[in-house]
């Protein structure tokens, strides 16, 4: 996203909300062939209440009327849905561009050619390490090879510039240059995003999130390479590290310019807060998505000026904006408290205070993880 000019006045206006979202994420299914330890939607098994093809098309009709330019499709693994191509083609025919995230497992040579033939389509292949050991520790055995194979199919099919999407962790932060080189090899664009303690990430975040020293490393790397790397504006909390702001709007867009539609049609403020507290409504409600976006109590509240709370006296607040709402919420820090990864160190203290006060961090409410496998013993009777 590039602003013609980045006047603060524009950011203030965006915080007041737009007539329709700029960046709408739509998780098509909770079903997934993988079980990534940081999955923000705790995906694994399909939910029987997921939107039907007709319901999904009705939502696309509405997004067309709202002039949503493009949607970000995810999951789960969206290609698992049997109507995946039908929905993507329908969306594009309505003038709504599609960018979808996939682990690549269902992109064979045929599918790659089919995808390459479509206009207004972008693909993000998820990869969390430049080698199998680093990647598979997070995304599961064989997932590195799967992703690489999908990338080869896309290259062979002449898809053009797809994206490689990386969640930055303390184990892959040293590979940023290698990720960039890998992307260049495939004529792809690199996208790096921030790890949040959302979904199954609530359990893995403490072991995976970058250290304070590594946050400086990410900031410096983005200042050097940021213009050619996508970030989904997810690292704005790092702006407190220096005078120079990172490229992008540097604000939390939740409920203001961003939102999530989950597989059963529930609308949340952003993809990282699948929890009742951030649920604004459902596309199945009377008035549909448009009514939720324009009139829900939650989104109206998020568009009001926000209190800086505990950060009000900190000189960095204008730079970091208090950080990420989702990150605070799932580690038990109040929403007007510091980000758990506050670069000035206030997050550590706030997490300690939360645990000392016996605050139990809220758990994700929609867990579609696959059940743990229990070995079965077959006996004869």
């Amino acid at each position: 996203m590039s602003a013609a000019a980045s006047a603060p006045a524009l950011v203030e206006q965006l915080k007041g909300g737009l007539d329709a979202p700029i960046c709408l994420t739509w998780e098509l299914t909770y079903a997934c062939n993988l079980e990534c330890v940081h999955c923000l939607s705790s995906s694994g098994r399909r939910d029987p209440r997921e939107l039907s093809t007709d319901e999904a098309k009705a939502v696309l009709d509405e997004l067309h009327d709202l002039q949503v330019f493009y949607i970000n499709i995810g999951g789960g693994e969206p290609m698992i849905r049997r109507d995946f191509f039908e929905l993507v083609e329908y969306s594009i025919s309505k003038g709504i561009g599609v960018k979808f995230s996939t682990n690549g497992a269902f992109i064979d040579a045929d599918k790659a050619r089919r995808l390459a033939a479509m206009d207004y389509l972008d693909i993000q292949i998820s990869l969390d390490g430049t080698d199998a050991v680093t990647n598979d520790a997070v995304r599961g055995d064989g997932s590195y090879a799967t992703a690489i194979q999908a990338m080869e199919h896309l290259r062979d099919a002449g898809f053009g510039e797809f994206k490689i999407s990386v969640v930055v962790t303390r184990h892959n932060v040293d590979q940023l240059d290698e990720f960039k080189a890998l992307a260049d090899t495939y004529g792809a664009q690199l996208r790096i995003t921030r790890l949040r303690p959302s979904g199954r990430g609530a359990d893995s975040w403490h072991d995976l999130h970058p250290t304070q020293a590594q946050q400086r490393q990410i900031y410096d790397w983005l200042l050097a390479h940021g213009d050619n790397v996508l970030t989904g504006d997810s690292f704005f909390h790092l702006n407190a590290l220096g005078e120079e702001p990172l490229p992008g709007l540097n604000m939390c867009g939740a409920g203001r310019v961003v939102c999530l539609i989950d597989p059963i049609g529930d609308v949340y403020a952003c993809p990282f807060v699948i929890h009742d507290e951030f649920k604004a409504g459902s596309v199945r409600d009377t008035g549909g998505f448009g009514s939720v976006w324009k009139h829900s109590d939650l989104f109206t509240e998020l568009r009001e000026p926000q209190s800086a709370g505990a950060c009000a006296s900190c000189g960095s607040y204008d730079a970091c904006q208090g950080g990420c709402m989702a990150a605070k919420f799932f580690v038990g820090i109040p929403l007007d408290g510091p980000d758990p990864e506050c670069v000035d160190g206030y997050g550590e203290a706030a997490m300690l205070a939360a645990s000392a006060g016996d605050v139990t961090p809220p758990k994700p409410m929609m867990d579609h993880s696959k059940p743990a496998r229990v070995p079965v013993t077959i006996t004869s009777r």
Partner: protein
Amino acid sequence: MLDSSLDLHPQVALRPEPFGALAYHYDTRKLVFLKHPDVVRVVQSLADHDTVADALAACEIDERRWPSFDKALTSLYESEMLHERSS
């Protein structure tokens, strides 16, 4: 730029917003904010006029503001949101 004959690129869509409009380019995937309703009016009227200056005059934009419009439209041209008309 004032003497140029410009038009919105055919792959660009405009969406009205309280502050002005959003412009999205389906080919370059670029999103740009038009931050004043007057800029939106001028951009929308470009196709009906021979030159940018004609469009500014027709939209009754005060001449003292023309340099800033020139700058804004140049920036839109450079990001391929506007293109030269071949007529």
